[in-house]
């Protein structure tokens, strides 16, 4: 099956191996490898602005994938993802400055620390669901945020925490171009890990819990275990994303990790497609580029005679804010399954072109 270049019409998978493959066809695998190779060469042609956007896409993308595993694959909900993201950032900075652990090890360690915290706050998840769970995770958001403000030993309080750049064999990854490779590696690594997780026994258990928890329990899936594990994995991803963010900026301040960030993560996942790994990335790309594209429009407007008025430019700034809200509503109405689903439809259209059935 995996040796096919094109996807056949119909589902002819006859073995578990074929059912489990990451890349459905040879072409997809080839394209993926090609894209990664191209991405490696990208800093040669792209300027700092695009590199920053890519780095943003990767740390947000990693965290968003965590949320998608929780929300999209396990059917739980979390409104505290922004706080976990922040916890990862602080944890990594703290491990590095307090114990002199090299940053490359701090990042995964911060992931595990965040995982612990996430599982602690996920404990109610084993018992409650739906709206009640949403409120419980909302509490996590506020508790952790308050903790950032108070725990001076951990976060530096009002003055924030310093995060050293990633350093390997004496080389500091402190420029956009060098950090780009760290971000790219982390993104690819974490996404492959996510794909593999979903092919595993645990991944299937998550999906079973989501689709029908009663049936899952009858089949022998331990609900408590998998709900909690899902929270742990989700926070692990958030922690890794946060740690990358911290070491990229070189400085972590608790200012940004608010409920708004948590909601933005949810928006990325919903726009991208719940329960889709590639959809997560699409959602993140969309959410990162949307304000930039709108900003670009304002910039272009400024070059015209009519556009360079404070009224127009300020007005567009408001529209930019509203556009994000509008996009979420439009997606919920017209494309509830997200960009991933839309992508699938586009592919289907071309696959049978011009003989769509």
């Amino acid at each position, binding site marked *: 099956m995996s040796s096919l270049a094109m996807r056949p019409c119909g589902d002819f998978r006859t073995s578990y191996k074929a059912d489990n493959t990451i890349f459905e066809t040879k072409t997809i695998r080839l394209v993926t490898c090609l894209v990664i190779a191209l991405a490696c060469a990208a800093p040669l042609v792209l*300027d*700092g*602005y*695009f*590199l*920053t*956007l890519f780095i*943003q896409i990767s740390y*947000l993308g990693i965290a968003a994938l965590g949320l998608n595993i929780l929300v999209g694959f396990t059917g739980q909900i979390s409104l505290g993802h922004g706080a976990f993201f922040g916890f990862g950032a602080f944890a990594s900075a703290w491990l590095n400055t307090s114990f002199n652990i090299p940053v490359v090890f701090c990042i995964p360690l911060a992931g595990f620390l965040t995982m612990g915290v996430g599982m602690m706050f996920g404990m109610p998840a084993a018992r409650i669901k739906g709206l009640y769970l949403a409120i419980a995770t909302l509490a996590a958001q506020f508790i952790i945020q*308050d903790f950032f*403000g*108070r725990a001076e030993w951990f976060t*530096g*309080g*009002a*003055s*924030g*925490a*310093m995060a050293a750049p990633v350093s390997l064999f004496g080389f500091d990854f*402190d*420029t*956009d171009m060098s950090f780009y490779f760290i971000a790219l590696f982390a993104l690819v690594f974490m996404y492959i890990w996510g794909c593999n997780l979903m092919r595993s026994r645990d991944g299937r258990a998550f999906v079973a819990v989501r689709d029908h928890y009663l049936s899952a329990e009858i089949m022998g899936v331990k609900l408590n275990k998998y709900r909690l594990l899902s929270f742990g994995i989700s926070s692990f991803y958030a922690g890794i994303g946060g740690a990358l963010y911290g070491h990229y*900026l*070189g*400085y972590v*301040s*608790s*200012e*940004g990790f608010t409920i*708004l960030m948590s909601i933005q993560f949810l928006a990325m996942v919903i726009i991208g497609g719940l329960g889709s790994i590639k959809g997560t990335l699409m959602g993140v790309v969309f959410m*990162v*580029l949307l*304000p*930039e*594209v709108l*900003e*670009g*429009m304002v*910039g*272009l407007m*400024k*070059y015209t005679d009519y556009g360079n008025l*404070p009224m127009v*430019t*300020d007005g567009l*700034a*408001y529209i*930019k*804010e509203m556009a994000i809200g509008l996009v979420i509503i439009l997606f919920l109405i017209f494309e509830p399954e997200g960009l991933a689903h*839309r992508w699938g*439809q*586009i592919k289907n*259209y071309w696959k049978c072109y011009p003989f769509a059935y």
Partner: protein
Amino acid sequence: MTKKILLSTTLACLTFTAGAAQAEDTVFVGHLADMSGPTAFVGKPYADGVRDALAYINAHGGIDGTKLEYETIDYAYKVPQAIASYKKWLSRKNMVAMQGWGTADTEALISFAAKDKTPIFSASYSGHLTDPKGKNPKTTKPAPYNFFYGASYSDACRGLVQWAADDWKAKGGKGKPKFTHIGANHPFPNAPKEACAEYATELGFDVQPSVVISMKPGDFKAQCLSLKSSGTNYGYIGNLGGSVQSLIKSCDTVGTDIQFMSNIWGGDKLVFKAAGEGVRNYIFPTMTPFWTDDVPGMKLVREISKMSDSTGTEERLHHYIRGVCSTYFMKESMEWAKANGGITGENVKKGMYAHKNWVPKGLEGVCLAATWTPEDHRGINQVNIYKGNFNHGDIKVEKVNQVTLERRTDWLGY
């Protein structure tokens, strides 16, 4: 249909993100503003001040003939957006200096600014931005390329505490006056908390545990009751905007007898108008005179204001005037830079150190005299203390005092 949409959006993305500009004898100044986010209440007037000042400079010859190219981006207090804008300006436009805004963006950009040698003039007055070389052991992160016009939050609070100590004596108060910090548990209200409490203790205050109120407007009667029961005499307000209004209203209802002293963003005529009768002898610091004050430099400020308000009727807040000062200090350091090797980020920084007790030309009496040195970025060590009264709708703001603070080395960067 779908592919058409997809194609056109992709094309649109490419064209819009790739917009570039050519420059002939211009330098680029980035301007980050919050006009639609959580701090828009004061962010808008401050941004207007910066923008009008930049436009005015351009309309009157620029920096000795070099035009300023500038772009205002409303980043709505979102850090990722601020970083992206900064990087875009740096890599596309060759930015030489930036006018920034709040705690969130300023702190996120400290390391980048130092690495890229781009001075950032912020409206975040955190004390820890004042230690460019990390001399104070308490400084976590030296901020060599950060400047701001005004006394730091800590210094302003110290000035208020100094005033409060005199006030207590003048009123013939007996025993130790009680001092409480009131504010949200966020970096901005927390910035002066420790430093100010330390100085208050030094001056003989009895410092109470701080009272937390949310950054968002709400009902703060419970907090006001605890202020009342603790018998607080002097309360420092660390928040801004709607939250301050709610606090004043709630405490007025509860009937507390506290002398409120706010941070620089927490007191202006808009707040007083909205907060109503509760505003009685409300003490707040400023770094500039008020719109209606009659000082020589206000003539220029009124001209600058006409850039966006041609009728000249709009009464600007003191935040606006501070934005003008911040821009004019940058302008004069750029002029120095142009005369001494060209306008680059590094030279603009050096230009900031070129003068002592320095007031931008034309703004005499408006901007306080400032001195920046390579070791000490506490430009201003003076605090104007003003008193606001609601006065049944006829709002009165009067100057009470001007406090000058020592530049103590143990206060550097904190």
